[in-house]
Structures are given as structure tokens and as C-alpha cells.
């Protein structure tokens, strides 16, 4: 190499960056990584070996229990035991698996639960399709309209006047959502646009353009109302609901109601009006200082005392109310934490441009606060999902209740471990998925506006 500097036409020395060189051996690549992270000195080597030994031990023990000793074909627990010495009775889990998912819901009617689940998935899925417009309407209706449809599909029976009106609303809404999504994906214009366009209202004022939409909705509603007037589903009492299905119903309603009611309570707690503030603080502190199990017992034993004689408030409804109240109180504190993280300058700037209280909250403060709170909110949801197992104690057969019921089945008497393991696995999969999704959401939403 020559150290003589090169010069350009004006005699200035030309800067030449040094060429990059490969890193010293064994700091990168698999071996380097292993060396640096696992065998970096005596202590770390020892820790690695002990950790590995523990891992191998646990894995082998589990393998032996679950696979080597596993019995998949058996009519009862006795056969499991005899087939292999103290065999692990997966046959019992298999036999009961449908019960873990649907509880004691009559087998010929189970399609109703599956169909409702499918409808919910279809209803929510468009939220993740970029081309779809009016996502907030779709999302809100999935939370506010779908439950009535699902409620009827689960319960069945004669429809009362309210349900006669509401079930067709939900059906029309769902169908309209699906058509809207298809049109959005295929043509780039939503259902509303098409209706306005096809009825020739496209060059009228915004207000006038609403008429064909309302007319179309009304006609569709009447048609469906008429078409399904004689159609009923077999009634399935809530006492037969159970398993993961029941867990999902209870925690789903709890989760859907927790965020709005938590926001209202958190805002109330910061309100300038003393009565509202005291009421909110009282509610939050009361429900946060009492264990959920106590609230559940109170709900099932004490609600009926306050209600008029004839009105029967079933156990499931009481449990749902209890879970909702409990979840709201916890969510309120989470939301308050998020609200506190928003600097005072944001409120001031928003007020200074003339926004009133609700617009400051809805447009400036809550969007920022909720984004900050996503991990905590999802944490709350996960907690709630797991906490609903407590309803098994007041005699509802949720997933845990069903799992415990197996051991009372004469054929499978005393079978505890395998069903419990299965329930744990189901809970783990659901909660892990939620947690992962929240991390993804956090990253995605955080990408837009790094401060």
C-alpha cells in the first residue's frame, strides 16, 4: 500500500474511506454466539449446563408421561390403567373434548355455536383488510349488534317482541357488511356508494343521499322479518351452556363492556363535579378491594333478593353482571394511568384551539392514552379471561367446570391430570395469542409517531 496521498486537480487531498474488514473469528455466527452467550467464563458455563440438564429432565419426564405412557384408545379409565401400567388417559380427554368446548350443549345444536363463531370472525375480519372503508361502523356493530344475533342463536326458543325486531336487524346488518366488504375489495367503493349511485342520488346533497340508504335498510329489514317469522331454533337453556364456549361468552361480554365503562369511570374519577367524582371513586375502590369470587357469590345470592318476586335472574346473567362490574373497575384504573401520562400541554393546546371537553378527550387525549395503554389493556383482558374460571365455583360449567366434571363421570372417575393439562393448554394458547397480538399492535401503532 502506498501512503502517498492522491490529490485532485486543485491539489486538495482526496479522502478515501478505509475498506471494511471481516470481524475477528468466533464473535459472529453460531459458534461465536454460543461462546459469547452460553460459555462465557466458568460461571456462565456452569449455569448453561445446569439449565440444559433441567430442561432435558423436564422434557424427558413430560415425554414419558404424555407420549410413552399415553393411551389413546380406551372405553373407560380402567382400560387406560390396565393397557399400560398407570397409562396417561388421553382417551378420556378425547371422549370429553367436545364437552370441554361446548359444555352440555345438545350435540345436534352445536352447529349454532360454530356458526355464530364463524359469523363473528367474518364480521371482524374486514377490520384487517386495508381496502375496506367504514371500519369503525363495522367494528362497533360487531360489538353492539352481533351479540343480539348470537344471543338468539345460542338460546333459541320463541322470540319476544324485542327479539322479533332485533334479530332481523342483526341479520341484515351482517349481510350488508359482507356485501360491503366484497364490493370494497372488488370495486373499491362501499355498499353505501353503490346504493346511492344505482338509485341516481349521487349528485344530490349529502342529506338527500341518505334517503335511499335508509329505504334500502328498511326494505331489507321488513323482508327478513317476514321471511323468518315462523322460523325458530330449539330452546337451549343456559344451564346447558358450558366449556370454552361459556368461558368465551362471559369473558367476551366482560371484555367488550370493560373498555367503554372503564373509560367512563376513569373520566368520572377526574371530573370536576364532586358528586360524579365521589360516585366513581366509590365504585372503583369498592370493586377493586373485593375479590371477584366474593362479587360472584354476592351476585348469585343477593341480586335475587333485591329483584321483584316473579323476575328470575338466572345464574349466568348474574355472573356476567358481576364480571362486567369487576372488569370495569379494573379497567378504569388502567385507563386513569394512561390519562395521567398525557402531558398538560396537550390539553391546553386542544382547549386553546377551541375544542370542548368531549372533543379534547375523544380526539386528543384518549387516542394517545389508549395507545400507551395497549399492553395494560390486553393484560387486563388476559387476566379477565383467566379469572372467569372462578364462575365454576358458583356452579357454572365453564371450561374449568367441565374439566372437573370429568372426574365425576363414572366411566372416567378420578381422571384429573389429563383434562387439567388440556385446559391449561387451551388457556395458554388463547392468552399467548392475545399477548403476542398486543405486542404486534404496539409496534405497528408506535411506528407512525415516534416522539
Amino acid at each position: 500500500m502506498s501512503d502517498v496521498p492522491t490529490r485532485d486537480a486543485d491539489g486538495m487531498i482526496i479522502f478515501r474511506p478505509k475498506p471494511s474488514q471481516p470481524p475477528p473469528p468466533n464473535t459472529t455466527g453460531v459458534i461465536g454466539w454460543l461462546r459469547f452467550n452460553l460459555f462465557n467464563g466458568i460461571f456462565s458455563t456452569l449455569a448453561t449446563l445446569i439449565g440444559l440438564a433441567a430442561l432435558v429432565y423436564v422434557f424427558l419426564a413430560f415425554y414419558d408421561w404424555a407420549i410413552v405412557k399415553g393411551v389413546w384408545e380406551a372405553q373407560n379409565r380402567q382400560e387406560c390403567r390396565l393397557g399400560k401400567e398407570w397409562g396417561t388417559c388421553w382417551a378420556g380427554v378425547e371422549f370429553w373434548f367436545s364437552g370441554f368446548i361446548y359444555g352440555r350443549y345438545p350435540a345436534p345444536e352445536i352447529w349454532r355455536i360454530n356458526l355464530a363463531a364463524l359469523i363473528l370472525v367474518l364480521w371482524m375480519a374486514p377490520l384487517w383488510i386495508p381496502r375496506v372503508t367504514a371500519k369503525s361502523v363495522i367494528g362497533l356493530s360487531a360489538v353492539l349488534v352481533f351479540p343480539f344475533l348470537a344471543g338468539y342463536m345460542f338460546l333459541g326458543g320463541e322470540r319476544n317482541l324485542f327479539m322479533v325486531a332485533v334479530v332481523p336487524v342483526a341479520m341484515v346488518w351482517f349481510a350488508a357488511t359482507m356485501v360491503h366488504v366484497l364490493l370494497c375489495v372488488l370495486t373499491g367503493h362501499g355498499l353505501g356508494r353503490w346504493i346511492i349511485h344505482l338509485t341516481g342520488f349521487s349528485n344530490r346533497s349529502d342529506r338527500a343521499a341518505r334517503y335511499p340508504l335508509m329505504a334500502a335498510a328498511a326494505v331489507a329489514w321488513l323482508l327478513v322479518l317476514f321471511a323468518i317469522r315462523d322460523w325458530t331454533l330449539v330452546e337451549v337453556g343456559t344451564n346447558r351452556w358450558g366449556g370454552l364456549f361459556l368461558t368465551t361468552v362471559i369473558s367476551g361480554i366482560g371484555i367488550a363492556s370493560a373498555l367503554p365503562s372503564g373509560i367512563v369511570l376513569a373520566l368520572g374519577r377526574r371530573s370536576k363535579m364532586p358528586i360524579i367524582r365521589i360516585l366513581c371513586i366509590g365504585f372503583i375502590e369498592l370493586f377493586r378491594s373485593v375479590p371477584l369470587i366474593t362479587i360472584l357469590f354476592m351476585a348469585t345470592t343477593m341480586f335475587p333478593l333485591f329483584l321483584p318476586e316473579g323476575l328470575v335472574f338466572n345464574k349466568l346473567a348474574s355472573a356476567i353482571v358481576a364480571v362486567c362490574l369487576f372488569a370495569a373497575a379494573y379497567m378504569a384504573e388502567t385507563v386513569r394511568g394512561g390519562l395521567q401520562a398525557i402531558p398538560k400541554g396537550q390539553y391546553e393546546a386542544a382547549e386553546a384551539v377551541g375544542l370542548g371537553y368531549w372533543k379534547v378527550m375523544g380526539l386528543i387525549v384518549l387516542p394517545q392514552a389508549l395507545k400507551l395503554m395497549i399492553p395494560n389493556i390486553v393484560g387486563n383482558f388476559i387476566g379477565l379471561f383467566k379469572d372467569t374460571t372462578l364462575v365454576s365455583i358458583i356452579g357454572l360449567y365453564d371450561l374449568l367446570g367441565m374439566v372437573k366434571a370429568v372426574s365425576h363421570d363414572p366411566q372416567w372417575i378420578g381422571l384429573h391430570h389429563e383434562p387439567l393439562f388440556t385446559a391449561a393448554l387451551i388457556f395458554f394458547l388463547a392468552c399467548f395469542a392475545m399477548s403476542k397480538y398486543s405486542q404486534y399492535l404496539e409496534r405497528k401503532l408506535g411506528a407512525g409517531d415516534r416522539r
Partner: protein
Amino acid sequence: MAIDTITEQEQLKSAVSDEVVVTMVSVNKWFGDFHVLKDIDLTVHKGERVVICGPSGSGKSTLIRCINRLEEHQRGDIVINGVVLDNNLKNIDTIRRDVGMVFQSFNLFPHLSVLENCTLAPIWVRNMSKREAEEVAMEYLTRVKIPEQAAKYPGQLSGGQQQRVAIARSLCMNPQIMLFDEPTSALDPEMISEVLDVMVELADTGMTMLCVTHEMGFAKRVADRVIFMDFGEIVEQNTPNEFFDNPQLDRTKLFLSQILAH
């Protein structure tokens, strides 16, 4: 050259009309026991540009924040554009629509793009259509010389750019009065001038401005009146020339010598 400046200043001053837009009569305010504003009397005419200066803690921010009710005064009267500032929420709303404010720490909305920052209030407060609001916003973003940043988020801009967005955001509401609370104190030196340039241009359009600042060059250039505050009182006020060259009170003289020392 000198003659040029004088005629320019004369022209600016002639823009000041007789119409009174801000009236404060013996306004008093306390934070707990601490008396922040003591018997403030202030009248600002339409088109007038007032610079407020004074040592830290003298109540400058509190004074201008009382004008749009970010702080509530406890005694005395404030009338803005003929509307009495009292506990009537409707009056407060009316006043806030007509009064824009620019903060020391920008306070842009970090979750909204620059354009959305500017269109938010016109859409939600003035009920403007989105398209119209965006047109207006682009016009003001062009005026503050950053139309090309419209799609970015505040976190992606430099301090000077953020403060110019903040000015544009206020202007989009088409305010009658603009309040500035030390708009350049959080900025690096090379960014101060880009913000001051925008403010000077705004002053040239005849906007009524109340500006807390220690930028004396700016005060000399555009102010019709300089107000000096200390201990919650208006100590002295005068035209910039008189104020800087011929202060009447010893306190003012000391303050001026301190800020001009470095």
C-alpha cells in the same frame, strides 16, 4: 436605509385601529396564597403588536393565559372582542375560537400528521368540510414555508419546523388575536430566526399579537408597544424606541442591562 425603516414602521403603526380587542381592568390572580397578577390594566387595539417581557416568574405567561382562559382570573374584568370572559362556557368557547395560542413547547398532537394537526380544529370546531379544511391548512403551511412536511408526524420534524406548524395550526382557525408564549425559547439558535421570520410576516399582515419574548430584535422590529412586568405588575410600557433607549424606571433599566449584557 434608516429612512426606509422608519417609513416601514410608520406604515405598520398606521395599521393599528381604534377598535379595542382586549380589555383587562384591574385583573388579579392568585395561585393559592401567591399573588401572581396584581391589578393588571391593559388595553390592546386591533392590529396592535404588544411584546411582553420581564424576569422569570413575573407572571407573563399567566397574564396571556388568562386571555383565553387557560388560567382563571379571580378578580377584575377581561373583555375580548366585546365578549366578557366569565364562567359562561359559551363565552369561553367564542373567545377561544377567536384567539390563537402558540406555546413554548409547541404542544403539537403527536398522534396526528402535520396536516391533521392543522385541520382538526377547523373541522371539529368550525364544522368545515375536510376538503376545505385541508385547502386552508395547506395555504397556511405554505405561508410558514413547510408545505412539503404536511404528511409527516410532529416527531419527525425539527423544533423550528414544529413551532411553525404550531403557528399554522393556530392560524387555520382564522383567529383575530394571536398569543405567543416564548415561542422561541425552546429552540436552537439557528431555528429561532426561521420562527421569528414567520412571526414578522404575520405581523406584516396586521394580526393583533401579544407576544411574550426576550427577542429584543424582534420587539424593536415589529412591536407597537413593549410591556415590562415584574412581581405580577406591569412596571412600565412604552414604544420600543422609548422603552429600550430611554427607560423611565430603575427596575426596567436593570432588567435591560441584564438581558443586553450577553
